[in-house]
């Protein structure tokens, strides 16, 4: 079982990864270097509509864009499942498939759950790919996006001071 405090903490380097996001497309964390990155691990595609976290983040994208942040969703679902889910919920940001070896990236970030799903965990990375904020939500609670935006605010003001 993943310890609730097992998620990577602020200041720690974010492990590099390359994962498929479609039948013939891959995304690497390195592509996001130089700008803030939001990693949203979630248990599974097809949670019920209206309260769905990924659908909410799609709607909130203009707010993330204001920080120049890249947004990546990650679950253990297959690329085919992601494709169908993204089409049904109008999701246009990459949904990454942590499918084989299953949950390998979730494990590296300390958010692989005991039942074989990724936890509902958020990470905001700075442009140098260090964790600047992380949060693990109860599995059945959509954490919204306020924490992410607050973390992006803090990152921006920190960089302005630096």
């Amino acid at each position, binding site marked *: 079982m993943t310890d609730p405090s097992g998620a990577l903490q602020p200041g720690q380097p974010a492990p590099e990864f390359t994962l498929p996001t479609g039948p013939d497309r891959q995304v690497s964390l390195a592509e996001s270097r130089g700008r803030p990155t939001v990693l949203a691990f979630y248990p599974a595609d097809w949670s019920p509509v209206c309260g769905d976290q990924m659908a909410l983040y799609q709607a909130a994208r203009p707010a993330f864009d204001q920080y120049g942040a890249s947004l990546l969703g990650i679950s253990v679902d297959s690329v085919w499942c992601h494709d169908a889910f993204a089409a049904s919920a*109008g999701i246009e940001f990459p949904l990454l498939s942590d499918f084989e070896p299953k949950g390998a990236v979730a494990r590296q970030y300390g958010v692989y759950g005991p039942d074989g799903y990724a936890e509902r965990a958020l990470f905001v990375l700075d442009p140098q790919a260090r964790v600047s904020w992380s949060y693990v939500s109860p599995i059945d609670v959509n954490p*919204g996006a306020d924490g992410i935006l607050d973390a992006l605010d803090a990152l921006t003001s920190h960089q302005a001071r630096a």
Partner: protein
Amino acid sequence: MTTPMQVTSSKLRVPLTDDDHVRGPAEAPVTLVEYADLQCPYCGQAYHRLHELLRQRPETVRLVFRHFPLSNVHPYAELAAETVEAAGVRDQFWAMHDWIFEHQDQLDPVHLSMGCQQLGLPEDEVADEVARHVHLDRVRRDFVGGIRSGVNGTPTFFVNGVRYDGSYELPELIAAVDQAASS
């Protein structure tokens, strides 16, 4: 929606302004802010209960409606939101709001235009403003304010500025309002 709880903040971060759509007496001791998507079926359920809540507690509560359209899930949500804003600048916000919730399965442009006609609104002018997205900034301001307050789905309620995570069945809503009024 199915995940009503939320975690990081529980306060309404955007205070009421003159720009808000308010129904009920200004001096009411309880202010209920609703973030809603006009095409969301759960908001449609809530609409009828809120109507009854205001009828049963006319002195106690005022309702504030703020937009939270999830247009990637509900293709007509933003269109409906812009239409109700166009009605709002003609002092018909609540009439159009009610029409939309009572015709939630018919929110395509043709039916929205019929709704405008039925309310005596200039449907061509409204359609033109909607097509030019004259009111889209207003809608998006509500949405971003909602995101900042931790809104994670619709409907989401705040009672006197504090997030309300309880059921929105009528008896629970009445109890929440009565409790806020007496505290």
